[in-house]
């Protein structure tokens, strides 16, 4: 017997909250990036779960797009982190505040 969809949703919500928690509390840029990946994957879980539930492949195709997007985002994110390190000697995101005001 298939697992009820609400469990997928609970799993997804849990993963999302873990990602959100990471974004709000971590100051290391790499951890930041990973947390964002978690949040994206929580969304993927939802897509796939509903796709399975309705017997429709659109959601699965969409989750493939999200993965592609996540890969692109990581490429950009890593680039930003590299520049951050080069300019500030650190990848702590709370450090660079020179642009405020």
């Amino acid at each position, binding site marked *: 017997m298939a697992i009820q969809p609400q469990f997928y949703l609970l799993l997804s919500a849990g993963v999302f909250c873990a990602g959100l928690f990471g*974004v709000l509390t971590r100051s290391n840029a790499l951890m*930041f990036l990973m947390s964002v990946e978690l949040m994206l994957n929580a969304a993927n879980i939802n897509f796939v779960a509903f796709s399975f539930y309705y017997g429709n492949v659109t959601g699965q195709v969409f989750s493939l797009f999200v993965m592609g997007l996540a890969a692109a985002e990581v490429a950009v994110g890593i680039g930003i982190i590299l520049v951050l390190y080069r300019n500030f000697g650190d990848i702590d995101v709370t450090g660079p505040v020179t642009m405020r005001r």
Partner: protein
Amino acid sequence: MAVFDYAPAIAVLPLAAFALALFGGRYLPKRGAIAGIAATGGSLVLSLWMLVTIALGADPHQQTLYTFVAGADGVASVDLSFGIFIDQLSALMLVIVSLISLLVHVFSLGYMNDEGETGLPRYYAGLGLFTFSMLAFVFSDNLLMSFMFFELVGLCSFLLIGFWFRDDAPSSAAKKAFLVTRFGDYFFLIGVVAVFATFGTTAFVGEESFIAMAEHAMPGSEAAVPGVVSDWLGVVGLSASQWFTVVGLLVLGGVIGKSAQFPLHTWLPDAMEGPTPVSALIHAATMVAAGVYLVARMYGFYALSPTALGIIALVGGFTALFAATMALVKQELKQVLAYSTISQYGYMMLALGGGGYVAAVFHLTTHAAFKALLFLGAGSVIIAMHHNENMWDMGGLKDRMPVTYATFLAGSLALAGVFPFAGFWSKDEVLFETLIHGLGSTGGTLLLLGYAFGLLAVVFTALYTFRMVLLTFHGDARTDTAEDPEPVRWNVKLPLAVLGVLATVVGVINLGAVKKIIGESNLFLHEWLFHGAEGLNGEHYEELLHDFAGYTAAELPGGPLAPAAVSLGLALVGVGLAYRLYGGADPDPHMLKLGSVRTTLMNNYYLDEFQVWLAMSVTAPVARVADTFDQGIVDGVVNGISSVSLLSGDRFREIQTGIVTNYAALLTLGLTLLVLVFALAGGWF
């Protein structure tokens, strides 16, 4: 007509002299004087040619030279243009202006060049521009062009009065002349705009001119009311005669400023700070004459409004008397002449207001001759006295400067109105016209009042004139300089001689007082001005005065002889009084006996103080309140708005910490709040 093709050159020649003197004056012979003499001489020849052409029967000439704003076709629009209009009046005035200007240029050789003045190219450039402006003003064919050159005349007077700008007095006198006349010109400008708004044109000439349209718009006129005028009268909500009175009085503001009429006459005595030839030019032919000429030019418009005419007559008559009293006590030669100018222009205004169009133009003509003569004579005395102008330091000059004395005496007799000099004929005609129209018209009381003022002023005029002559030329020399005055050369004597002859004989052009004897048709100026352009001649003006202003000439039993005898008698009384008071070898300063009256007159009735008080105690506080309103309320609203946004911006930028985590937290918070709001609103709980 080929001759009229040369008309623009009348004004352009002095303009060329101006440019030459300004840019190349240093290299020119006599620092630009020769160029000026050649140019004004050329203008004089051309003007005389125009005069003769018209006298031989040519029609008046109107031509648009340049349209600088052309109205679109088919819409209610206006054309702004420069044009020339040569008729009997403007041809006569062109001759006067160019003649006086030529003589002033010649005289300047003696007064400026021989005295070793510096800055002469600037001086001759100013004279050239002055002459150009006045000539262009005289032949302009529309009111807007008149206004532009009227202003240019004012500018030139500023430049020339302030010629010795390194001293304080001339530069402040120049500013005063500029500002006081500008005050009047402000009303003139509004008047020009009002004429544009009412008629859609400012042309002087033809059926489409504003003068002709105004006549047609009057109730009782046989012609149809022009549509544009009746539309505008509907907008302002006044009847035609009321509105034309308002417009006429607005334009009159400029006239009162320029022609130095009460209460805007205060600039003129101060303007004596300028070089004496400039004073002659200003008083006789250019600046001051411009105002009176303007009223004469648009007399067809003023003739429609008895109220405006009454005000002109009263202002003129009052000014004539008022200025004459002040001239009685002055000690400087030129000051006496300055007040006499104000007084004489008062007579011209009195004549215009009193329905004496010809009389006004006649007095303008004779006055140009004898006042230029008196000023140049005064200039000659000033050269002789090493620039001391106080008459009490002179005396006995008649034997040492016979040419100056003879010509000055001729000018003084003309000014005093003694038979048979020019001033007698013209002043008598002014008074006579005012008298007969005052007696014959209903509501002629204002005119009779003006006549009484004018008659009383005759005595004062003769008294101050001969006080001046006797103190300057008669008696014993009171100083060493007067013992041994500096001789003057031909370039001073020649203009004096020319003007002396003119001041003696120019009255011949209109021997009004004896018209019963010589016959009406021998009043040359009368005939001349009665055969002008269609709708712009004396005959037509008389009809207008009769139909619309209600002026009717009374028939006096003895004709003009009796009033002439009265005014001549009064003039002789004044002369006799002057001779009795100042005729001795060593005259006493009798005017000192007047005590406080003399002090008041010396201080010009405290009018200058009053005007300063008006500026300091009335205008300045009002300006200060307006400034406070502007700074506090108007600017305050704008500043308040900006400071609110500045303050709130200052507060709100605190949330921009620059830390990514905080932004993420705010995003999350916002999202949560949004979900909560949706949840509550959607009733999920």
